[in-house]
Structures are given as C-alpha cells and as structure tokens.
C-alpha cells in the first residue's frame, strides 16, 4: 500500500488519492467516517488532472448519509 502510494506520488498524481481502511463488516459508522474522509479529501484534491471535466455531485455527501441512516 505504502509502495503504491509512493508510485503515485512519483508519477505526479499525489499519494493522497489512494488509501486503505480496515473496517469490520459490522462497523457501519467507521465505514461512513472513512467514506466521508476520502470523499472530502478527493473533493479537496479536485478531479484527476488526467481526466478533466468530471466532478462529484454537490450533494453526494448528504445522499450518502441518508443512505446509511435509512
């Protein structure tokens, strides 16, 4: 995992685009937290410089929370 992050960093895409979380199958809150964290991070990083013009939907986070609560 660290090595792959390093490869991405060297390539210029940045290591932050890849992460691994260990989450138990029953641990929904942790899963939500991880998805949130990653979503926020990806939003901050912006779209892949290789693929211009595709953006996250503005309400993606909100939809996600609704999904888990229901």
């Amino acid at each position, binding site marked *: 995992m660290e090595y792959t992050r390093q*490869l*991405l960093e*060297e*390539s*210029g*895409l940045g290591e932050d685009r890849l992460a691994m979380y260990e989450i138990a199958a029953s641990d929904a809150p942790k899963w939500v937290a991880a998805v949130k964290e990653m979503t926020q991070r990806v939003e901050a990083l912006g779209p892949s*410089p*290789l693929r211009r013009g595709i953006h996250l939907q503005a309400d993606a986070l909100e939809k996600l929370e609704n999904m888990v609560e229901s």
Partner: protein
Amino acid sequence: MIIAERKPFSEIKDAMAPYDKILIVGCGTCVTVCLAGGEKEVGLLAMQLKLALGLEGKHLEVGEITVERQCDLEFIQPLCGFITNYDAIISTACGVGVQFLASLYPKKPLFPGLNTTFLGVNEAMGFYTERCRACHNCYLGVTGGICPVTMCPKGLLNGPCGGNVQGKCEVDPARACAWCEIYEKLERQGRLEQIEKIQPLHPHDRSTNPGTVIHPAYRRRYDGHE
C-alpha cells in the same frame, strides 16, 4: 542471484523525454525474484510513465514484454521484429541483460530501468543481502562458509581489523564482524587451525574485467575466442 533496485523514477522519466513510443522489457529470472524488474514491475513502470507524462499533456505509448532471461540469446532474439516498432527501449534486467539486449539492437536507444546492486540471497520476501563478490578465488572452504571478501567490508583475509566492537562490524554496527563469525564457527567445528596459516595476497589478476570463462568441454569450439 543478482539483486537490483529500480532507478529513481525521475531519472527514467527524464530519459524518455525525446520519445513517443517505448518498449519496456522485463526479465523473468533474478530481478523478478527481487521484485525489481519482472512482469509486475514492468507493468508498474509503464503505468507510472503514462500517468506522469499524461500529467504533462504528453501521450506516451508504452509496450510491455517480459522474457525468461535477458542474459540468454535464446530468449532475447525473438524480440527482433517486435522491437523495431519502438523509438526506445527500457530494460529492467540487471546490467548483464541490459548490455546483452543493447548489443543485439545496435540502432535502438536503450536505457536501464534498474541499478544492479550485488550477488545475494533472498533472506525473506523483499529482503536481500549480499553474499558473493565473484572474486575468482573462493575462500569459503577455509573460512567455514562465511566469505571474508564479501562479508568483511575491507575484505581482510587474515582475521578481524581492530574496529569491531563486541563482535559487531565497525562499518555497520547492525552487522556481525565476519571474522568473529568465521572464528566462532571454525572453533565450534574444531577447525581453527585452518585460519592460523597466513593467507597470501589475493590474486586480483584473475578478476581482471571483463572476465571470460570457457567450459573445458567447449575449449576446442571456442579456440581463439577472446
């Protein structure tokens, strides 16, 4: 086997600047085992190059192929027709393979993807250590199977230097002093008298490079071969 490490990515990438279509040739033997230049590493390097050059707005076409061994004509000759389609080649073999491949395709710019480091063992997954300096004059029978030329940074042939501290090497305290190990091993085997005799100066003339070995059975065939 031969141990190698991948070159810094920036060095490989910079070398590719003039080209649009390159071929990465991996090697399926030693450098595959040490995770430096086998099929998987060829794929990773191709991916990285495409990403990095893509970020600079450049489209690089990358071909990938891995042969059994680049140090053997049998395996690299078949690449002949294939290679002509590319502007340049990166070989992720050790220096041996890179040179053999380069000699076969004299018109093609060829770049090494690895730095060749040493002859070593696979201690554990991802962990390689040196064992042999290919010195043409093996002492292992005298020194209890521990090489003084390789395992002692100074290559001393007659016992430890004064720098070891509690059996640890002066050069790298994490490592055992080779001569302390040799002594201990031979002492346990009751063979210390083997190292009491003064070992004469090493015959460096034998390892004048580049070396050539011709198997006795093939002497007539290669008579006059230099």
